[in-house]
C-alpha cells in the first residue's frame, strides 16, 4: 500500500512518524509539506491583517500559556530507537529515496496531479488544513486524520481543551477526512494517559505519540482488510472553536489542582 504524509511547519513530527513506519516496513512514499513561501505571504498581507496579527501575538503573550514540561515526542523516538538526522528535510528525503513535495496549498492542481500519478492509496494528515473534495477523491482509500478529541462529540478546534473543560476522557480519534469538519468515518479512539503535573501542552505533546501509534495500527488494519468504519451521527456532536485564553487557564488550573488519572 502506497502511503504519504502531509505535514506543515515543523517537520519533526512527520519525520518521527516516517521513521516509525519505516521501522515497521510501512515506509511512506512521499511527504507533502505545506509551507507558505514569501510570495504567498506578501500576496495575503495587508495593513489590517498585519495589525490584527501583531495584536493577537501581543494578547497571547499577555496570557502566558504554560509550556511543556517534557519533550514526550523525543522520548518516544528514543525508546523506538529512532534517530532524527540533523540535516534538512529535503536531504533526508533524498537519502530515503522519498518524494518531497513542497506547496503552499494542499488543494492545488500540482498536488492532485502528483497524487493521481503516484497512485497514493492513503494520506496521513498531520496538519494540512482543509481538503477539497477533489483531493479527497484522488487518494484511493482516503485521507486519515488524527483528531485530538472524542468524535462525534467534539469537532473543530482545541478539542482536547474542550474535553478537559467538560471533564471527559481525553484522547485521539482516527478518522477519514471528508468534506465536512471532522465529520468523516471514525476508525478508532485511544485515550491519552494523564499524569500528575501534566499541562495542556504536555497532553498535546503526548497526543503526538498516540497519533503515530494509531496511524500505524490503521495502516496495518487496512492492508489486512480488517478495518471497521463507523459513520458519524452528525447531530450527536458540536463544532468547537478556539478556546479563549481565560477558559484555557481555568482548564489548566483544574488540571494542575485536581488531578485524577483517567487511565
Amino acid at each position: 500500500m502506497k502511503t504519504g504524509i502531509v505535514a506543515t511547519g515543523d517537520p519533526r513530527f512527520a519525520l518521527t512518524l516516517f521513521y516509525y513506519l519505516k521501522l515497521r516496513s510501512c515506509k511512506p512514499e512521499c511527504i507533502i509539506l505545506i509551507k507558505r513561501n514569501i510570495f504567498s505571504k506578501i500576496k495575503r498581507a495587508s495593513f489590517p491583517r498585519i495589525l490584527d496579527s501583531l495584536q493577537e501575538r501581543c494578547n497571547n503573550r499577555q496570557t502566558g500559556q504554560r509550556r511543556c514540561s517534557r519533550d514526550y515526542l523525543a522520548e518516544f523516538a528514543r525508546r523506538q530507537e529512532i534517530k532524527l538526522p540533523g540535516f534538512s528535510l529535503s536531504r533526508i528525503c533524498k537519502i530515503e529515496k522519498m518524494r518531497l513535495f513542497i506547496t503552499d496549498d494542499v488543494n492545488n492542481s500540482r498536488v492532485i496531479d502528483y497524487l493521481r500519478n503516484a497512485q497514493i492509496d492513503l494520506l496521513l494528515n498531520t496538519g494540512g488544513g482543509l481538503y477539497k473534495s477533489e483531493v479527497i477523491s484522488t487518494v484511493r482509500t482516503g485521507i486519515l486524520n488524527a483528531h485530538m478529541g472524542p468524535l462525534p462529540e467534539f469537532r473543530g478546534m482545541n478539542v482536547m481543551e474542550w474535553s478537559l473543560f467538560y471533564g471527559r476522557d481525553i484522547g485521539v480519534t482516527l478518522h477519514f477526512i471528508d468534506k465536512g469538519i471532522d465529520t468523516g468515518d471514525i476508525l478508532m479512539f485511544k485515550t491519552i494517559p494523564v499524569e500528575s503535573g501534566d499541562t495542556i501542552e504536555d497532553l498535546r505533546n503526548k497526543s503526538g505519540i498516540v497519533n503515530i501509534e494509531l496511524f500505524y495500527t490503521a495502516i496495518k488494519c487496512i492492508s489486512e482488510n480488517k478495518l471497521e468504519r463507523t459513520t458519524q451521527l452528525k447531530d450527536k456532536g458540536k463544532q468547537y472553536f478556539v478556546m479563549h485564553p481565560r477558559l484555557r487557564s481555568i482548564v489548566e488550573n483544574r488540571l494542575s489542582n485536581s488531578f485524577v488519572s483517567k487511565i
Partner: protein
Amino acid sequence: MRKLSLSVLVDFIFRKTNIKIFVKSIFHPSLLRVILRDLFRIKYNRYSDKDHLAGAMEWLCMSQDMTGCGGCSATYSFERGWTLPYPETTGYIISTFLKYSTLTGKSTYIERARQMGDWEIDIQLPTGAVRGGSGINDYPIVFNTGMVILGWSDLYEFTKDTRYLDAAIRAADWLCSIIDPDGKWSRFTYNEIPHAYHSRVAWSLLEVYKHTANTVYKDVARKNLNWVLSLVQRNGWIEEMGFYKGEIPLTHTIVYTLRGLLESSAYFEEELRLKIFQVVVTASEKLMLKYELNKRHPNATPGYFPGRINSKWQPMANFTCLTGDAQMAIVWIKIYELNQDARFLNSAIKMLDQIKELQDLNSKNNGLKGGIRGSYPIWGNYMPYSYPNWAAKFFADALILQGEVINKLER
C-alpha cells in the same frame, strides 16, 4: 467587517457628515483621535474587567450628572456633546446601577438609581405610560414603558419602596389596556408598527407579575410571546425584529427580541418555556457560528460581528453595532448558564474583549472616557459619531455577568 484600509478611507471620504464632523473635530483633538484610530484600525489597550467596568460606570454617572435631573443623557455626540435625558434607557440603567452597587458595595450607586427612578416617576404620564424619545415629550411609547418598568421593578425589589411598585403597576396597567386582541402592540409604538422586540415589554409585565401575583400581567405577556413565536420562520429567523417595516434589523434589536424571550420563558410552564428556549438557542447558535467562522484562519480571533443580519442569517453591514455585541454576549452567557454549552460563553468572552479594545479609558474628554460608541468604525450606520448610554449599560451588564460566571468556574 474585514475591509481593506483603502475602502474604509473611501467609505469615510464619501459621506458628507463625516467631512463636517471631521472638520469640527480638527478643533477637538480627542474627537479627531477617535476618527483617526478607526481609519487606521488602531485599538485601545485592554485592561482588567474591573477597570473596563469601572470606566463604563463612571461614564454612565457622568451621563447622569450632565442632565442635573436624575435621568441619564441619551448620548455623547460628536456634533452636540451631551444630549437630553432619555427616559427609556434611564429606566433600564437603574438595574445596572443596582447590580454594580451589590458588586462593589458602594451605596452611592443605589442613591443614583433612586434618583433615576424618582425622575421617571416625576415625568410618568397620567395614563401610566412612559414618554417617548429623549427629553420630555407628550407621546407615550410601549417599549419605553416596558423598559422603565424593568428599572422600577428592580428598585422596588432592592429598596422595598412601594412608590416604585405603584409606578410600575400603573405603567403595566396601561400596557395591558392597549394590547391588540392577537397579542401584539400596534398602537403607541416606535414608527407605529408592531415589533418582535416587544418581547422585552412582555418580560417587564412578568416582573410586575412577580411582585403582585396578578395573573392579568402574566396572561398579557403570554399573549404577546405567542404572537412573537408566530413570527418564527423555519430557519429560526423572527420577523418584525427591525425598527422599521422591511428593515434589515440591527443586532441591537435582534438581541432585544431574544433577550425578551429568554427572560420571559422562566415564568412559564415547561412546555412553553422549552419552546421559547429552543427558539432563542437556535437563533443564538446561528449568530454564534456566524461570529466564530468570520476569521482569516481557524486559529485567528474572529472579526467584528456585522451590525445587521438579514432573514437568511447573512451579515449585511460593514460596521459593528457595539450595543448589539454587548447584548449578544449577555444572551450567550445566559444560554451557557442554562444549557452548559460553553461555546456560547467562549464566544461571549471573545466578543467582550473586542468591545474592550474600543473603550478608551484614558481620554481627557469625559464624553469619551469609558464610553462605548454606537458603531465601529465610528461613522458606522448605527448612532454614528455617538456614544449612547445603552451601549455602556449593556457592556457593564455583560462584564458583571461574565465576572459572575467566570468566578463560579474558577471555584
